[in-house]
């Protein structure tokens, strides 16, 4: 099992997402990917993977204000793969 030290995390208001994908390339460590499923509006939405730094780039680039950014009080080891 591979893990990565993760300093930050985000909350994603999935139902507010309009699927524009601007957050995906905005994320420096590339820990956001689009879902296969769609939300209530019919849009695919971002999912977070291990390695978020809490840099807030996704928040700054999301036109629909769906992100909230957090930093862990103590960085955590998160699994990279299932």
């Amino acid at each position, binding site marked *: 099992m591979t893990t990565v030290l993760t300093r930050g995390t985000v909350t994603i208001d999935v139902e507010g997402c309009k699927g524009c994908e601007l957050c995906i390339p905005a994320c420096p460590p590339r820990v956001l990917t689009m879902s296969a499923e769609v939300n209530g509006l019919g849009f695919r939405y971002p999912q977070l993977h291990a390695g978020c730094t809490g840099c807030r780039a996704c928040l700054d680039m999301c036109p629909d204000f769906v*992100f909230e950014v957090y930093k862990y009080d103590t960085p955590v080891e998160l699994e990279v793969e299932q």
Partner: protein
Amino acid sequence: MTAERSIVPTGSPPASAHRVAELTPDLLLTEEHQMCPGCGEPLALRVLLDTLSQLGVAQRTVAVMGIGCYTSFSGTMDLDLVQALHGRAPSVATGVKRMLPDRVVFTMQGDGDMVNEGLQEVVHTAARGESVTAVLLNNGVFGETGGHMTATSVIGQRTKNTLEGRDAEYHGHPIRIGDLLATLDGSAYVARGSVHNAGAVARTKRMVRRAFESQLRGEGFSFVEILTMCPTGWFVPTAEGPGYMDDTLGQVHTMGELKARPGGGPSDHASGALAPEARPGGGPSDHASGALAPEARPGGGPEGGVGR
């Protein structure tokens, strides 16, 4: 990838973490809006509202709004606000500021509103050195009507009324409004930013802050032009909006600080990140001969149209 990447739960904040950035900008009554997917205007709105909160001026600010897609924010911005007609926001802001000289007054207009319909008003407001901050959301297209050419559309840009692309001979040349306003003695701070990536958002936020600081120091007219994505009006896939913007509008309406008063605070970012256009010592006369020089082409017209 050999195996599927694990998904970190994002439904609610973890217990042992502190929030570094909020979902909804302060000064916004709801995060919901009717803008299209991938629109740059909400990004610019966040920059603006966050700056006003951070400056602590929300309870002495009057917003004057133009008419465009962004007008729907009139109802969601938690600010005292006057809704102006298309093109007229700088004049309305002048009347507000003259009656309330100790308040912070800003306008929000699009390129159709400011550079087409109301060009004379913003030019004269700048020339008078009116102590207001004008924010232009420039996407080079009439987004609200569905994608028509404006005065800032670049050569080659396809719109619903320039189907083969804007042709300089037939449709004329785009106006670089920031450069134009920077030549006027009444303008104290002029900058052009964008929201096409997170770095640009951060730089634009500093510009907006410096513009308001300039107003607070009473230096004169301050102006921040923000290039924003309009994938709908550009007829490009939403995810390609930032790249398209950088390749097209961004090549003509080049980003950077165009003018700042000598006394205008720290020039670190002016000389650093914004190097090409920054004029740290740039007073009006200096600017007119200096900052515009790179773009003064003997042959006249703007080049660097749509890179397709």
